[in-house]
């Protein structure tokens, strides 16, 4: 067992662990993409990874910089037009797990990637929703991974780009959604899961050498901890080796071209 790892490595590996061979996973770019490919290269070799560029069953050898790098199509089972991706595969209800990141999240796992400040006069104009609004509603369940910080984990979002559990409780069901929504948020310090009833994000596992105080200091709301908080198992040597290998290959590839 290795003890020499960074918080980001821990985050990626902890995120990867929740995926299984049976998952058909809609992969967001960045941290989600790293986690999904670590899962594929370790315990879930048969996982189906789908990127919104239309690539289905892709097995990239290096992590894509963009959602539509050539690597994704080269290694895919097949590639469909983008309208088909959103109509038949995502809206069609064929995706078991959507894996998202975001700029900001609130305690009900709603995400903001649109604006900081008022929409009409933004303080910061972020990229926008992309696929997230419908990924969040149409996938069987949602995993989220982002580094814990006061800027990112906020009490109230300026803008809900994609709905998590809305105002909490049965809000999703009241809007007619039959999917589960966010079931896990993996950060570099801890793992949250929504409370079964209130749906408020609750710390269920803390990474090695992290304290509850550190979690609270880096989160913009008053953090709830589960009755029993687990210690996140540290990365195995295999997990770390796989992650570092793919990161090294990726760095080399992205700097080359």
């Amino acid at each position: 067992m290795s003890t020499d790892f960074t918080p980001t490595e821990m985050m990626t590996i902890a995120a990867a662990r929740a995926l299984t061979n049976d998952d058909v996973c809609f992969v967001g770019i960045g941290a989600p993409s790293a986690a999904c490919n670590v899962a594929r290269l370790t315990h879930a070799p048969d996982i189906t990874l789908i990127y919104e560029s239309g690539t289905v069953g892709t097995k990239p050898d290096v992590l894509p910089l963009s959602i539509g790098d050539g690597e994704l199509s080269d290694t895919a089972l097949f590639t469909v037009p983008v309208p088909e991706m959103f109509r038949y595969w995502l809206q069609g209800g064929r995706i078991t797990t959507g894996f998202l990141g975001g700029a900001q999240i609130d305690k009900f796992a709603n995400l903001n990637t649109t604006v900081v400040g008022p929409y009409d006069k933004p303080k910061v104009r972020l990229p926008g929703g992309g696929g997230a609004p419908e990924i969040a509603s149409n996938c069987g369940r949602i995993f989220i991974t982002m580094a814990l910080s006061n800027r990112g984990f906020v009490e109230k979002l300026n803008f809900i780009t994609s709905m998590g559990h809305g105002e909490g409780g049965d809000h999703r069901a009241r809007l007619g959604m039959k999917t589960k929504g966010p079931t896990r948020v993996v950060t570099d310090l801890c793992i949250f899961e929504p409370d079964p009833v209130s749906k408020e994000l609750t710390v269920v596992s803390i990474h090695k050498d992290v304290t509850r105080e550190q979690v609270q200091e880096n989160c913009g709301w008053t953090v709830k901890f589960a009755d029993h908080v687990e210690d996140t198992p540290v990365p195995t040597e295999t997990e770390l080796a796989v992650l570092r290998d793919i990161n090294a290959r990726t760095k080399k590839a992205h700097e080359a071209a």
Partner: protein
Amino acid sequence: MARLCSLSEAIAENVKDGDTIAMEGFTHLIPYAAGHEVIRQGRKGLYLVRMTPDIIYDQLIGAGCARGMKFSWGGNPGVGSLHRFRDAVENQWPRPLEIEEHSHAAMANAYEAGAANLPFAMLRGYIGADLPKVNPNIRSVTCPFTGEVLAAVPAIRPDVSIIHAQRADRKGNVLIEGITGVQKEAVLAAKRSIVTVEEIVDELNPPSPNSTVLPSWAVTSVVHVPGGAFPSYAHGYYPRSNAFYIAWDKIARERETFQAWIEENVMKASPEDFAKHAEKQPVKAA
């Protein structure tokens, strides 16, 4: 039937000041050479449509060609912000930019509806999201059988759509391979269309009977521009220049460096300058 012509002719004939224009390509096959020609010809007041306005639209916006933009994700993919886009939205520089913002699913459906000659698209979308509060073009429609309420958005019908593709034959039939994005829909939804290609061949020879082909009679102009998708890529021809995407962040961050880059690499350049990018081999053969 498509006319085979030069890029300057194609842009001069098909892109007018004030047009609604879609330059599509989902990371792959982005028509950069055509975008540069639009800037060189000094088009003004364009209403830009694109799911993922990345560097190509950052350049058009910063160069002052655009009055508005409809989009669903505006960023430098994997790198960060589009600084020229942000400068236009946050500071109205070089001019104000009216924006209409959607989700990818809505934009993809809206192109699809345009290609299908429908006035609107419907989707199970936007549930619980805030965009419908700020975008009056997100409405609803009720199923006449079940009573279910679905989101509705207007079809996208550009005046002109521009895409890049792998090859065309001499009649102007076009083949697109790999990540095809919404390019076919963008062309079929538009009044006029321009396709720049890596190669003109005698026989198109699609690898499958079901390959993605745009027939000559559904395209207005076909132009031979090898390397014309750089710094994006052409599946089977050359790889994406991730290094350029990373470098763009610094170029576009300040108005002065941006303007110097445009002057040097667009205003003083020509479509033929893209050919050098076509010479790199893809890491993996397609």
